[in-house]
């Protein structure tokens, strides 16, 4: 009998033990950084490693052919979603290896998938370190590059050219690339179908038809000197029909101007180190602001060809502004860095008339309506807490840009999302407050009686959709988004989508054995 007892004991003990199996999945069930397209809201499911689209018809799973989505970017016209994704490849030849965790020689391939109507229309291999996308003016070309300021780890497989910029034609997924030097910072698109890329110590222009470099312009003749651009804009001169690049560099008061047609540089002195540039095409003028100086400088584009100190007109301010927000024919100058500055200035670029608005608290964010009739500032508590009730609280300041009046509202809690909406007669701010399950619609012409819209759950963010509606994400782990119609204030809420494919372990994709099994 002894052997029978031993067998039973062994079986019983074996049964009672938890059998550990490897599961490397982790993360949230869904990412609240959603992407809105014309056909619905695209949502990344990090735990399930899936991409879904949610709309009124329901949930659709986007087949990325085994690739794991990392980040979503919507095209400007909302017709496509660009998905940064990776797919895992096992370099071992053992046909028994099915799951990634079984493979000792696993490599990751980075791709950019172009998605439309919940299906991949094309897929482009891109280097894994490219983390930022810019779109050409007509949204037909996407430019991917590495921006060191973008959060997240920089992934490099083998050797990588960190100065590589990838150009992707969205319609067919064709790709070109160019090396633009070290640390590309910003990509601008000129009217003559060129991409102008700023990088350390040089500017490179690339033809968007051929993806060939048309210009390499160094910012210094000293190879040992590193000049990092801090800001750049394209300025169109209506008299000559020439587009010029305006470039500022870190730690310098110089303004670099590059004529993209004649390829010659001109350099002027702004008198202080600029912190921001704004360009207004309506009046063909540019505005420079300075965090360390209480002035703004206006540059008339018609004087770009003969840039000198007389081309630059100073506008004196009471307080320094470090940001310029451009409207149609005017600039709003404000300071979001200083805790002591409460001034917002409207600079009329036609008349050079300066209007000063004093808001209740320091500005965190400033937005202007599409019509240009109102601006809304999200204000934060004073640095020292402030002595009075309003000083120690968040709020909204509404600037009537027609009557030059302003109203400051105190918020019950921190605004976690503010968006602007307009109809034919009125302008509104749609505000979400931390800890509140209510959306406030503030009529900017009469802001003292906001309309409250009850939300199904506490919100996380609000963003405009291409069709004019707004998408609100909610703090619900199993997934919840609401689509708000700003005209009717009706909500359409979709939830529970985050469990899609929750219990599906991903097999190694794009391998012969697994594809046959499928």
């Amino acid at each position, binding site marked *: 009998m002894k052997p029978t007892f031993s067998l039973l004991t062994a079986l019983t003990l074996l049964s009672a033990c938890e059998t550990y199996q490897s599961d490397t999945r*982790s993360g949230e069930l869904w990412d609240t950084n959603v992407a809105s397209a014309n056909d619905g809201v695209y949502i990344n499911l990090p735990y399930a490693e899936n991409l879904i689209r949610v709309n009124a018809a329901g949930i659709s799973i986007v087949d990325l052919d085994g690739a794991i989505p990392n980040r979503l970017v919507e095209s400007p016209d909302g017709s496509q979603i660009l998905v940064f994704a990776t797919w895992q490849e096992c370099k071992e030849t053992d046909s028994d290896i099915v799951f990634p965790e079984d493979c000792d020689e696993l490599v990751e391939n980075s791709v950019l998938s172009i998605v439309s109507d919940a299906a991949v229309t094309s897929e482009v291999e891109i280097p894994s370190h490219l983390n930022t996308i810019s779109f050409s003016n007509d949204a037909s070309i996407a430019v991917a590059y590495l921006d060191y300021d973008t959060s997240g780890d920089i992934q490099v497989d083998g050797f990588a050219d960190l100065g590589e910029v990838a150009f992707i034609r969205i319609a067919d997924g064709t790709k070109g690339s160019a090396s633009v030097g070290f640390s590309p910072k910003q990509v601008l698109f000129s009217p003559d179908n060129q991409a102008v890329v700023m990088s350390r110590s040089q500017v490179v222009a690339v033809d968007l038809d051929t993806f060939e470099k048309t210009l390499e312009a160094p910012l210094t003749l000293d190879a040992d000197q590193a000049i990092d651009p801090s800001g750049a804009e394209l300025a169109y001169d209506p008299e000559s029909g020439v587009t010029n690049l305006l470039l500022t560099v870190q730690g310098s008061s110089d303004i670099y101007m590059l004529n993209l047609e004649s390829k010659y540089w001109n350099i002027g002195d702004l008198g202080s180190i600029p912190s921001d540039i704004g360009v207004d095409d309506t009046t063909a003028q540019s505005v420079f602001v300075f965090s360390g100086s209480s002035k703004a400088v206006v540059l008339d584009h018609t004087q770009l060809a003969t840039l000198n100190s007389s081309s630059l007109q100073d506008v004196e301010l009471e307080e320094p502004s470090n940001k310029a927000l451009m409207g149609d024919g005017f600039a709003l100058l404000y300071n979001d860095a200083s805790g002591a500055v409460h001034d917002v200035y409207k600079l009329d670029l036609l008349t050079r008339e300066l209007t000063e608005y004093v808001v209740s608290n320091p500005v965190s964010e400033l937005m202007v309506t599409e019509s240009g009739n109102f601006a809304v500032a999200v204000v934060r508590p004073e640095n020292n807490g402030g002595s009075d009730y309003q000083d120690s609280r968040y709020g909204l300041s509404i600037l009537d840009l027609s009557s030059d009046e302003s109203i400051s509202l105190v918020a019950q809690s921190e605004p976690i999302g503010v968006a602007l909406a307009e109809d034919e007669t009125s302008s509104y701010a749609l505000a979400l407050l931390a800890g509140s399950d209510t959306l406030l619609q503030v009529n900017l012409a009469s802001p003292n009686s906001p309309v409250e819209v009850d939300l199904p*759950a506490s919100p*996380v963010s609000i963003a405009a959709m291409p069709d004019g509606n707004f998408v609100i994400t909610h703090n*619900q782990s199993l997934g*919840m988004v609401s689509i708000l119609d700003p005209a009717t204030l009706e909500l359409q809420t979709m939830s529970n989508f985050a469990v899609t494919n*929750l219990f599906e372990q991903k097999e190694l994709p794009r391998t012969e054995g697994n594809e046959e099994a499928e």
Partner: protein
Amino acid sequence: MNTLLATLLSGSGTQFEYTYSIAAETGMVEQADVDWNVTDWQRNTGGFRLGYQLTSNVDLLTSVHWGQQSSGYNDYYYDYEEGYESSGLGGYDVAISETLMHVGPKFSWNLKPWFAPYATVQGILIHNRLQMSDDGAFDEDSTTLIDATGVGVGATGALGLEFRTRPVGENLQLFVYGEGGATGATALQFSLKDAGADENDINIGDLGYGGSYFRLGAGTKF
């Protein structure tokens, strides 16, 4: 103690005649699927087993077990590269209610009136109810609620040992048993009903049972 045990187990020298048996039991069918990680450690199920004697060596058994596993995920999650990460979301709760039904014959070797090794092969029907919500309430008032069911079938093979007391009166005999073996079963598929575009179901995925199996029980024959 030994005297008491010997007294309990010693019979009259002949097998007890019975038609039915009933027993309370606990046990486990291994959950051989990493997706069960969504709940906490596997727990034993509990239930009862009914028997009907077909011949002196063969019984027909049927058993039903119930169990529940649950977990609550708070505002953090574990990342295999970064460790515990703070979550931007509030967390969620999971509960899985298990029902396992076995039916099949048991073949006994009645070596002694008080001792009988046995083998059994049984079919298994498994039903699970998966519930998830953000507030843990699992009712219609929950802001989010997943309520899905899955069914699997399979078979269990096991070897066991049964110890019988001397008959209690003329009609009852108490017994205890333990058995171990293996189970194979189809995975239980869960889905969100009509949640997809064009009202098709959206896949949640499957949870699998299979691997080792054990049961411990005590009851009476009559």
